[in-house]
């Protein structure tokens, strides 16, 4: 009796079983593949994103801010931040649990190499699966950022420094800051613990004060008021204003007092130098609705074309002057409805420094491939003309006087003409904020800075922008001016970056 018939039958059964397997595989890997792959419980897609090769973030002077290092877990790579808190508010974080922020988010497609601009340079690169990620080179330099950090010390506040002719941000410091490293940890528990620690901290270290927090600008805003007055012909630096201790506000029984209840007035230039509130409140009332347009011209209340998500500044609404004149008087001295970011005040100073032309600010300078070839450069881009070159030149002179013999003498640097403006901004949170905005050298500006020390730092109510913030700006400017290297090469002094299409600016006049 041969058993072959049975062997064949058993064989057929096995083949049928395997056919069933093949059908089931088709069901899983073709029919249901999409829904299984995209099932919310299936973390593979997310893991893949976070385990992909990713370029580094570097400062303009070559310091590594963020980079991925190989690790032995499912993500294969760990995002590390060698500079810790120093650049946290610029780089942001790249977290499996929390997502991404800052440059990690804004330049994600460049960092991950998914940018459409990217191309394989040759077939060999493709064959060996070369990592086609991009490194983001910041316009910020480690030296400038450290100078900003050291100058501010452990006072809450912010320092922003930029190149007025290009819009490149050179320092973007907010204190307190945080270390993004723990947020990039692969253990969700560790990330949550770090995140809770940061968010429960009353000082809110994750808040990028430099561009995400809005403050009343105080008297630094008089730059905008004075510029608008000159630009519209409402007043000029020699226009005379009465010497007053306070200004009685229209439509109200309130009085607007000068700082320390002093009496001041005279020419607008004099009033600017000593930061006279009554004069500029009057200018604001004289300007009326034009103040709103003036703010707009400086980009305040507009969406800033910044490469990180900036908080939008605010001011009095258009068309409200006639029934709310006091708010315009207050706005003209940077109080009331006006709230701006430190970045925005640096841009105001930068616009004056750049002959009235406002450049689009940006923290990234270029994208490089792993071999160091530049794939793409960012900026310089003209955003808008804030004021005419003549107006800018007038304001520059007024700001020089502030540092020479006004409220901002603490910002003076021997051998360099510094132009600046102080601010002491009253706020509901406590002691006034100390402000200082400046640029230097005034004849051929290379750097513009804005400094805010929240609640005047340790001097409390005694603080003024001139005593607390101006020395910080002075240190940062002095450091920037002393630096050789990349931050100074992009701008040839006396050759401001202006497009030929810009009109109304006489050559060399600023």
């Amino acid at each position, binding site marked *: *009796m041969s*058993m*072959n*018939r*049975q*062997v*064949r*039958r*058993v*064989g057929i*059964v*096995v*083949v049928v*079983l*395997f056919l*069933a*397997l*093949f059908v*089931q*595989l*088709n069901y*899983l*890997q*073709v029919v*249901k*593949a*999409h*829904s*299984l*792959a995209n*099932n919310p*419980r*299936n*973390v*593979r*897609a997310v*893991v*893949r994103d976070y*385990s992909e090769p990713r370029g580094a973030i570097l400062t303009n002077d070559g310091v590594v801010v963020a980079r991925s290092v*190989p690790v032995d877990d*499912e993500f*294969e790579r760990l995002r590390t931040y060698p500079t810790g808190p120093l650049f946290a508010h610029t780089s942001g974080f790249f977290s499996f649990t929390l997502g991404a922020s800052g440059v990690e988010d804004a330049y994600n497609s460049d960092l991950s190499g998914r940018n459409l601009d990217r191309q394989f340079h040759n077939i060999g690169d493709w064959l*060996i*699966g*070369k*990592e086609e990620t991009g490194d983001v080179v910041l316009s910020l330099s480690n030296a400038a950022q450290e100078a900003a950090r050291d100058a501010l010390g452990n006072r809450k506040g912010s320092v922003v420094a930029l190149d007025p002719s290009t819009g490149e941000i050179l320092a973007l410091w907010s204190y307190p800051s945080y270390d993004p490293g723990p947020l990039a940890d692969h253990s969700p528990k560790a990330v949550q613990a770090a995140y809770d620690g940061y968010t429960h901290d009353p000082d809110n270290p994750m808040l990028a004060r430099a561009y995400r927090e809005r403050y009343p600008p105080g008297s630094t805003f008089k730059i905008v008021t004075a510029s608008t007055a000159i630009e519209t012909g409402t007043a000029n630096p020699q226009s005379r204003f009465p010497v007053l201790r306070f200004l009685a506000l229209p439509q109200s029984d309130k009085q607007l007092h000068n700082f320390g209840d002093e009496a001041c007035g005279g020419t607008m230039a004099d009033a600017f130098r000593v930061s006279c509130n009554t004069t500029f409140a009057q200018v604001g009332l004289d300007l009326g609705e034009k103040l709103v347009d003036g703010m707009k011209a400086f980009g305040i209340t507009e969406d800033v074309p910044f490469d990180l998500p900036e908080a939008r500044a605010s001011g009095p609404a258009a068309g409200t002057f006639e029934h709310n004149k006091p708010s315009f008087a207050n706005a003209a001295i940077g109080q009331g409805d006006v709230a701006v970011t430190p970045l925005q005040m640096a841009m105001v100073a930068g616009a004056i420094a750049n002959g009235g032309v406002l450049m689009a600010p940006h923290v990234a300078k270029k994208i490089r491939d792993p071999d160091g070839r530049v794939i793409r450069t960012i900026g310089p881009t003209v955003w808008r003309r804030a004021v005419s070159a003549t107006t800018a030149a007038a304001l520059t002179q007024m700001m020089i006087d502030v540092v020479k013999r006004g409220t901002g003498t603490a910002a003076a640097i021997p051998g360099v003409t510094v132009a600046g403006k102080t601010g002491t901004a009253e706020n509901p949170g406590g002691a006034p904020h100390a402000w200082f905005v400046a640029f230097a050298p005034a004849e051929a500006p290379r750097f513009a800075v804005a400094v805010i020390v929240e609640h005047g730092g340790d001097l409390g109510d005694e603080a003024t922008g001139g005593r607390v913030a101006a020395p910080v700006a002075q240190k940062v400017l002095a450091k920037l001016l002393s630096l050789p290297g990349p931050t100074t090469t992009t701008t040839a002094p006396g050759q401001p970056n202006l497009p030929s299409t810009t009109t109304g600016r006489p050559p060399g006049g600023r």
Partner: protein
Amino acid sequence: MKRPAGTGGAGPDAAARRSTELGLVTLAVILAAGGYVLTALAKGARLPANLAPFAAGAAGLALVAHLAVRRFAPRADGTLLGLAVLLNGIGFVVIARLDPDLARYQSLWTAVGIAAFVATLAAVRRVTDLQRYRYTFALLGIASLLLPAVPGIGQDINGARLWVHLGPLNFQPGEAAKVLLVIFLAAYLVEKRELLSTPTWRVGPVMLPDPKHFAPLLLAWGGSILVMVRETDLGSSLLFFAVFLAMLYIATARASYLGVGTALFVAGATLAYHAFGHVRERVTTWINPWPTADSHGYQLVQALFAFGSGGFAGTGLGLGSPGKIPNAATDFVYAAIGEELGLIGTTAVLLIYLLFIGVGFRIALRAEQPFLKLLAAGLTTILGVQTFIILGGVTRLIPLTGITMPFVSYGGSSLVANFVILALLLRISDEVSRRTDADADAAAPAATGARR
């Protein structure tokens, strides 16, 4: 056509088979090395540092196996070894991708497996001689099954008590039992098949043979199944059951055994379902894994995700996340293959098994001696059914029962057992070819000395 058989010479057919084998084995090693390189390239533009030792080791082991076949089974089928090396290679690449430490052990176990393969080829000079030791094999088989239950050396891993711990060695004696019991069954069934196929009494509509002949069978089989259920090794229980039934059917040609067997299986399964929580769990998870996707259903759901994420073409070696699947290197290795190599890869693996099984059954069909035929069929069925049980389990075609994927999964005992099965199949093939070649020689006009 055919040269007269030389004195002990293997003849031109044998030479052709061996050349085929060498070619296929070389191809398999190249494919494995290619996969190994691709996995490394997925991590960066660098060749794996240990590529040379890997390639040399793989080629060396495959060559040793090939030379052993040349020496001990020169007329054996030329495809089986190549297919086994390919499966082993794919498994190694995936294991190395998942866990380089496990891969080091796996290469060690592969060496042990090849050694067992060579030893089996060398020791079993006449497969028919194995019949003589059938009861020894049965005893050894049952004893190995009982070993993990012995206090002191038994060890629980993943809730199942299948492991024996002797000094630094861990092994699953159930894997050895599987081979031993199939040899016993083949020998016993060949001896008793006439008696077993003659029904002497009936139970209802079913005719049954003399219990005297049936009892030892039932004892060996029932005993092993009970032991395994006790040790919660459901996959092996199912495998034994299926193989036993298939062999009984092949030996007796009585479909009624299949009926009785199926009835017994249903009864046993129902009993197990009610008696064991873990069985219930497996079945519920199989019917719908989603409500328990974070607990009991976790690993199955992760396996399904892996298959789905792999899709048709797969993510590419080293580019998926098969680390998400628990036990990805052992029971769930097929899901890891599914994720990184896609439907193309899973189907290819399926085809390799089908070819292997096809060759196994062909050897059985060509065998004239009943013992060889039944043994070849039994060993092939073990491989086929075991593959089906684990692949069906991880793809949710059938309830999941933990068992290894032959030649592919990480696991020393399983690898050794499968290489022994391969050696036995090749020895049978060699013996079968020796006879048929001799017959062909006899039929040739120039043949000297007629044989019947």
